[in-house]
């Protein structure tokens, strides 16, 4: 999954550095708050550990071998922010000293493997493990799912990043300048082996490591546990995720045609040769304020972004109002979980 230089355009590389920067900033702040000076050797050693285990060949059924990234186990023992720094450093060493993974593409690689992967692994692990005892089997399952899912989400991010290249960067005659496969080829080509093999390796190794730590060294497993009274669930990752989705909305422009079943009257005319009478009567009932997600006076892409932001803002406002109406007096006295 280490993207080498030459697969992504410099523009995409710059965008990925910019996307990773706020997470690096946040991670360094969080690590300084929680671990202080002790952080330096701890993060250095965990990043060295993650570097070393990437070299281990893990035997798979059928005689093949694969290797783990270690992003999930790093998130489980250090928390997502510590893991972000540790894995970023391991990736920087690979790119700078071993030529594995590009230097311009470092931002993209770090975004996929050092930011998305630990965050997905951490929230999956916390959601499944919840408050179960450290030695419970539920945590082994949580580790397995966290490893499998986080690697696959990271692989999907990589596939989208390089699958976008042929749409955005090509010569006048259409020859792609960077990675040549479009999203409909890049995503299955990347996801099938990750869903079936590489993700399995990450899941199995994470689960086995959790089992090992349960038996041999529970304090390490307890290191990143949310302390009593402090909620492990903050809403901000949700907002970051929503922001990422808003930024990705112009992807919709790349799809040709209309989503199945969402045809307008004029499209139905083309498809069926006629417009059902009932529909014809209803179609003028509600004139959309932003038809086809276009904002008057703005270009197509900014229009999409603004439409997405307005849509999410409206949905959030409606949910907030419903939540307020449904909240019974006294409900606030319940302890926060």
């Amino acid at each position: 999954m280490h993207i080498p230089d030459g697969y992504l355009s410099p523009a995409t590389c710059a965008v990925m550095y910019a996307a990773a920067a706020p997470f690096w900033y946040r991670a360094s702040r969080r690590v300084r708050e929680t671990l202080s000076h002790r952080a330096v050797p701890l993060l250095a050693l965990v990043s060295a550990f993650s570097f070393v285990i990437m070299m281990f060949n893990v035997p798979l059924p059928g005689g093949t071998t694969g290797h783990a990234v270690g992003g999930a186990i790093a998130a489980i023992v250090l928390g997502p922010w510590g893991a972000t720094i540790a894995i970023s450093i391991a990736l920087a060493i690979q790119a700078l000293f071993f030529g594995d993974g590009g230097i311009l593409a470092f931002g993209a690689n770090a975004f996929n493997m050092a930011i998305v992967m630990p965050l997905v692994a951490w929230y999956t692990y916390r959601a499944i493990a919840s408050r179960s005892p450290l030695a419970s089997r539920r945590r082994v399952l949580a580790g397995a799912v966290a490893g499998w899912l986080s690697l696959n989400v990271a692989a999907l991010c990589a596939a989208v990043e390089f699958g976008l290249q042929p749409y955005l960067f090509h010569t006048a005659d259409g020859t792609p300048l960077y990675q040549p496969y479009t999203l409909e080829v890049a995503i299955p080509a990347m996801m099938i082996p990750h869903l079936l093999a590489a993700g399995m390796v990450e899941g199995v190794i994470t689960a086995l490591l959790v089992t090992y730590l349960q038996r041999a060294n529970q304090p390490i497993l307890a290191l990143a546990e949310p302390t009593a009274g402090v909620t492990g669930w903050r809403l901000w990752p949700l907002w970051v995720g929503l922001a990422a989705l808003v930024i990705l909305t112009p992807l919709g422009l790349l799809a040709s045609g209309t989503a199945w079943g969402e045809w307008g009257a004029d499209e139905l005319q083309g498809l069926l040769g006629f417009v059902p009478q009932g529909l014809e009567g209803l179609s003028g009932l509600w004139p959309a304020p932003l038809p086809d997600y276009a904002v008057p006076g703005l270009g197509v892409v900014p229009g999409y972004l603004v439409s997405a932001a307005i849509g999410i803002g409206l949905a959030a406002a409606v949910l907030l109002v419903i939540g307020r109406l449904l909240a019974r007096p006294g409900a606030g006295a319940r302890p926060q979980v």
Partner: protein
Amino acid sequence: MTMLRRGDFLAGSLAAVGQALEGTLFAEEIGCRPGLLQGLDPRVKIGTFLLLLIAVNLSRSLAVLAALYLLTLLLAWSSRVPLGFFVRRVWIFIPLFTGLIALPAILNIFTPGQPVLVLWSNPLIAVTAQGLRTAAFLLLRVGTSVSFAVLLILTTPWNALLEALGALGVPEAFLLTLAMSYRYIYLLLHTASDMFLSRRSRLVGRLDAAEGRRWLAAAMGALLDRSFQLSNEVYLAMLSQGFRGRPRLMEGFRTRGRDWLWGGVSLFVALGAIYLGS
């Protein structure tokens, strides 16, 4: 992912670990040889290589990409990097994966265009001119980018690289962690290598995959355990040596005439490549 004989994951892991150790030792040795790139101020070298790398990745012309690749060979030769080793390191190990990716792109299935070689007539499967150009772009761009990165790595000792990154504004805390991590990678690689060797020397017959995975997880767990212990020891050692939370890196670089000359030449080459390749 590599195909190995069942039970040979121990040998595979040992080989990977050994290769990493050996590769960096060789790089350190080349980095200390007298040569063109070794004699440059590392700050200037990093800055100019970044510029050249951007030029490689911005170019829209195959001829310009080929010229930049030839430049890496010339630089390797004038920096006493063995050419055979340099070309092998770039073209055999690293873009093996890229070659596999580039290959299907030459066919009309993925890149429609002017057929130049018909492989199958009904349905038409042919190599297209556009497909060949697409594959050539990817291979040449990746190969040249990797060549520049490998040249930088081979001709710059790691401590000089770190100090230069510090001088160029990368946060010191990040570099201190990176330096420490790099140093302990060797210790952990040695520990891992010893574990694989001792397990392998006690192996009679074959190890089945499930047993192998369990052993591997225990080895990784032990390594993680060791990493945590070491981090505590290192922290205490840092405190006892007077660490007060502000890392300091040594820095003794001097920019000389040849650095300015090199900087000027590479700026000219990079801008020329961007202009000619646009």
